[in-house]
C-alpha cells in the first residue's frame, strides 16, 4: 500500500495544480459579469466614480449615457406635469408630492422617484466627467428643493411610506442583502454629495436644507439636518447603520438622491466636478462610509477584486482562457494516468497472486526428515526479469528410498511457471513408478520435450538408498550435486546429457556414489554458481567451500543458510537460486563415486567427447577404440549401447549392454497399438 500511495503522490501535484487553476477560472467566470457591469454602469460609490472619472477613455461614454439618462428624466418630469427643464425635475419630483392630493400623490411620488433614480444614475455615470458649471447648477437645483419641501407634513410622510410599500410590491421582492447594499451605496452617495456641497458654501447650505426640508418627518433626518454642515453627510451615513433601516434613513436616501438628481440631471457632468472639488473632504468621509456599510457586496475585498478584474486587458483574458484549457487538459491527462496506474497496480497484484499460487504448488512443503535423512530446501527468486523457473521436490519412495528433483526451466516469469509444474510432477511420476534417475529422465524426456515447446529445462534427479548407502543421480544439462567430503571436480563432466527440450536424447548419464559416513548432498540450480562477486562467477568451488563451513554445525546446515551465505558473498544474482540439501547421517567415511553410466548411440559412440569421457573414467587409451567399436556394434543392433564403468579400487570394470529403457518404451508402444486395435 505504501508503494501505491507513493504512486498516487506522484500524480497529486499536477492534479492539485489543475484543481487550483480550475478554481481560479471559476472565480474569474464568476466575476466576469461583475466586471462587465462595473465597466458599463457607474461605480457604486462616488469614490469609485471619482476614480473612474480620471480614466479618460471611459469619460466620454459615461457622459453620453448620463445625457441619455438626463433626457429620460426630463421626459419623466414632463409626464409628471413639472417643467420640462431637468433642472427643475429633481425639485419638481421632490416638491410635487406634498402639493398633490392624497390619491394622486402616490402616483406622482412614484414618477418622481423614477425620475430621481434616473437622475441618480446619470449623476453617477457623469461623475467621471468634469464641468465647473455643474456646481452652480447643483446649488441652484438644491436651492429649489428646500423651499418646496418646507411644507411637507405628517400626512405626506404617511403617503410616502405607502407609496414606497407599493413600489416595493410592484418591483418584486428585493432580497435583504441587495436592499442593504443598495441602501448603503445610496447613503454613501448622499454623504459624498453632501460633503461635496460643503465645499461650496451655497451647495452645502442647500443640501442641508434639502435634507432638512424633504426629510423633516424623520427624527434621524432632522438630526442630520441639524448637525453642522460639514458632518451632515457623515451623519446621514450613520443613520443607515441600523440593520433594518427605518423610514428616516429611506427618506434621507431620497433626500440625497433628490439633491444629487436635481443637481446633476441638468448638465450631467456636474457630479464629477462636485466630487472632484470636494476632494479634500471625500477621502475623509467616503471610505469611512464604505467601512461602516455592513453588506458584503461593498466590502473592500470585493471592490478591489472587481476593480482588478475590470482593468484586465483582453490579452490576459485570452491567456487565462488558454491556461484554463491547459489546466483542463492536464487534469484529464492526470486523471487518465492515475486510472492507468491503478489498473496496472491491480494487474500487478493479480499477477503476483497468480505467481504466488503457482509458486506454492511448485515449491512444496518438505518434511523435515525422511527416514534417516534430513531434508531442507530453499528458493530465492531473482529480483528482476530472471525470476521464476526453478523448482524442486523431495519425497519418499518405497523401501525407504528418498527421491530428489531439482530443476530450472529456461525462460522466466509467468510463462515458465506452468512448465515447472509439468516437469516436477511428470518426473516425480516416473520416479514413483520405480525407475532410476537416468531411466526416469530417459523415459520422460520425449514426452516433456513435446510439451515444452521452444523452452528447455535442466534437471537433476536423485535417489538415496539408505540400505545400500548409495546415492544415484542423473543430470540433464544441470550442475552435478555437491557432496561434502567429495572433490567437486570428481564427477566426470565430459559427455554430459543435454537439457530436456534441446532436441537431443537425454537421460544418458548417471553417477552412483557410495556414502559410507555422514555427509551432506547439496542439489542446486545454476543461479547459485552463476551469482557474481564483483564480476566473477561464484562457481562450484566456492559453493563447496561454503558447504564445508556450514557443515561444522549440523543444525545450521540448511538450504536456506547456504543460500543466505551465497547472498552475503555475492553482489549480483541475475537468476533464481534454489537449493535442496540432504543430510545423510552416519559415521566416518568419505563419499566415493562407484560407477558412471553412459548411453551411446551410433553417432556418440565415435565422438571425441565420448573419448574424453572414457579417458576421464580411467579407461586405458589403448582400450578406448575397442570399447567404442563394441558400443557401435550394440547400438547398430539395439539403437543404443549402455556402458557402465565401475570405479572401485584398481582399474575400472566396463560393462556394455543395451539400453534398458528402450524395451520399456517398446512394450508401452505395443500396448498402445493393442488398444488402438
Amino acid at each position, binding site marked *: 500500500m505504501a508503494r501505491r500511495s507513493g504512486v498516487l503522490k506522484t500524480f497529486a501535484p499536477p492534479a492539485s495544480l489543475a484543481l487550483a487553476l480550475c478554481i481560479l477560472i471559476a472565480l474569474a467566470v464568476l466575476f466576469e459579469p461583475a466586471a462587465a457591469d462595473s465597466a458599463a454602469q457607474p461605480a457604486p460609490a462616488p469614490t469609485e466614480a471619482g476614480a473612474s472619472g480620471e480614466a479618460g477613455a471611459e469619460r466620454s461614454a459615461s457622459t453620453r449615457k448620463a445625457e441619455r439618462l438626463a433626457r429620460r428624466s426630463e421626459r419623466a418630469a414632463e409626464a409628471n406635469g413639472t417643467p420640462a427643464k431637468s433642472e427643475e425635475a429633481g425639485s419638481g419630483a421632490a416638491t410635487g408630492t406634498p402639493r398633490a392630493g392624497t390619491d394622486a400623490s402616490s402616483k406622482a411620488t412614484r414618477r418622481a422617484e423614477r425620475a430621481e433614480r434616473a437622475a441618480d444614475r446619470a449623476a453617477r455615470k457623469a461623475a467621471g466627467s468634469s464641468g465647473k458649471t455643474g456646481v452652480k447648477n447643483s446649488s441652484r437645483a438644491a436651492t429649489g428643493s428646500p423651499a418646496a419641501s418646507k411644507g411637507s407634513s405628517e400626512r405626506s410622510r404617511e403617503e410616502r411610506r405607502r407609496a414606497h410599500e407599493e413600489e416595493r410590491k410592484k418591483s418584486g421582492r428585493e432580497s435583504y442583502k441587495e436592499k442593504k447594499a443598495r441602501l448603503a451605496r445610496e447613503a454613501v452617495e448622499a454623504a459624498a454629495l453632501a460633503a461635496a456641497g460643503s465645499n461650496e458654501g451655497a451647495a452645502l447650505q442647500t443640501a442641508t436644507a434639502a435634507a432638512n426640508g424633504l426629510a423633516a418627518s424623520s427624527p434621524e433626518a432632522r438630526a442630520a439636518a441639524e448637525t453642522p454642515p460639514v458632518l451632515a453627510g457623515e451623519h446621514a451615513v450613520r443613520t443607515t447603520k441600523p440593520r433594518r433601516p427605518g423610514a428616516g434613513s429611506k427618506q434621507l436616501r431620497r433626500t440625497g438622491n433628490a439633491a444629487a438628481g436635481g443637481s446633476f440631471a441638468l448638465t450631467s457632468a456636474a457630479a464629477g466636478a462636485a466630487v472632484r472639488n470636494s476632494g479634500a473632504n471625500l477621502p475623509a468621509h467616503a471610505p469611512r462610509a464604505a467601512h461602516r456599510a455592513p453588506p458584503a457586496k461593498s466590502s473592500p475585498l470585493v471592490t478591489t477584486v472587481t476593480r482588478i478584474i475590470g482593468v484586465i486587458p483582453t490579452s490576459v483574458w485570452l491567456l487565462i482562457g488558454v491556461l484554463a484549457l491547459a489546466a483542463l487538459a492536464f487534469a484529464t491527462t492526470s486523471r487518465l494516468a492515475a486510472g492507468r496506474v491503478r489498473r496496472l497496480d491491480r494487474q500487478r497484484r493479480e499477477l503476483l497472486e497468480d505467481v504466488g499460487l503457482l509458486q506454492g504448488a511448485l515449491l512444496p512443503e518438505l518434511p523435515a526428515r525422511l527416514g534417516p535423512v534430513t531434508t531442507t530446501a530453499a528458493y530465492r527468486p531473482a529480483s528482476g526479469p530472471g525470476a521464476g523457473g526453478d523448482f524442486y521436490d523431495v519425497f519418499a519412495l518405497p523401501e525407504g528410498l528418498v527421491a530428489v528433483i531439482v530443476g530450472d526451466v*529456461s525462460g522466466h516469469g509467468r510463462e515458465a511457471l506452468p512448465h515447472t509444474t509439468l516437469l516436477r510432477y511428470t518426473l516425480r511420476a516416473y520416479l514413483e513408478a520405480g525407475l532410476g534417475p537416468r531411466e526416469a529422465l530417459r523415459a520422460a524426456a520425449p514426452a516433456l520435450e513435446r510439451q515444452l515447446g521452444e523452452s*528447455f529445462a535442466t534437471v537433476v534427479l536423485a535417489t538415496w538408498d539408505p540400505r545400500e548407502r548409495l546415492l544415484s543421480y542423473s543430470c540433464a544439462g544441470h550442475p552435478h550435486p555437491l557432496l561434502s567430503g567429495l572433490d567437486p571436480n570428481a564427477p566426470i563432466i565430459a559427455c554430459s546429457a543435454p537439457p530436456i527440450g534441446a532436441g537431443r536424447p537425454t537421460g544418458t548419464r548417471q553417477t552412483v556414489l557410495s556414502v559410507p559416513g555422514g555427509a551432506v548432498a547439496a542439489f542446486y540450480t545454476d543461479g547459485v554458481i552463476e551469482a557474481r562477486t564483483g564480476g566473477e562467477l561464484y562457481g562450484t568451488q566456492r559453493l563447496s567451500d561454503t558447504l564445508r563451513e556450514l557443515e561444522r554445525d549440523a543444525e545450521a546446515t540448511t538450504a536456506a543458510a547456504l543460500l543466505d551465505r551465497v547472498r552475503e558473498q555475492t553482489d549480483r544474482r541475475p537468476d533464481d537460486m534454489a537449493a535442496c540439501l540432504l543430510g545423510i547421517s552416519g559415521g566416518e567415511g568419505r563419499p566415493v563415486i562407484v560407477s558412471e553410466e553412459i548411453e551411446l548411440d551410433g553417432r556418440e559412440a565415435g565422438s571425441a567427447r565420448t573419448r574424453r569421457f572414457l579417458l576421464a573414467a580411467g579407461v586405458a587409451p589403448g582400450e578406448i577404440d575397442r570399447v567404442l567399436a563394441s558400443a557401435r556394434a550394440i547400438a547398430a543392433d539395439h539403437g543404443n549401447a549402455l556402458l557402465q564403468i565401475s570405479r572401485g579400487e584398481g582399474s575400472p570394470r566396463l560393462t556394455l549392454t543395451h539400453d534398458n529403457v528402450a524395451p520399456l518404451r517398446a512394450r508401452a508402444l505395443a500396448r498402445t497399438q493393442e488398444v488402438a486395435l
Partner: protein
Amino acid sequence: MQAIGANQGDTDPGEVSFLITRKELAHDTSLLAVEGDLDLASAPSLKWALADVQSAESRHVVVDLSGVGFIDSTALGVLVGAQRALDPGVRLAVACTDENVLRIFELTGLDGMFEIVPTLQDALGFVQGSTTAAG
C-alpha cells in the same frame, strides 16, 4: 572479409559492455562476432542477430564466441533454438577458445549439439566442407 552488416550493440547493466558484429566470412557464410558476457540481458540481442542472418537466405552461420567470457542458460537456449531452426543443408559452427565457456557447454551437455572449434578457419572449413558434402 567485408563488414556489411550493421552493428548491433547492447549495454550490459553490469560493468561489461556487449557487442555483436556481423561480417561476411564467405559468399555463403555469415559471421556473428560476440563480445562481452552472454546472459539474460544480452541474449535477446544474439537472438535477433541470429534470426536476422537466418531469415535472409540459406546462409551458414559462424558464431564467434572468442570474446565471450560467460554464457548463461538463456543465451545457450538462444543458440539451441538457432541450431534447431537451421534449414536443411545449412550448418552452424561455434568458434570458442574460452575455458569457462567451453566448460559451460560441456556441463550442460550441449557440446555434443554444436560444432565447437577453436578458430574461425576451422569453423569456415566445417560449414563449407559440410556444404560440399551435402552438395
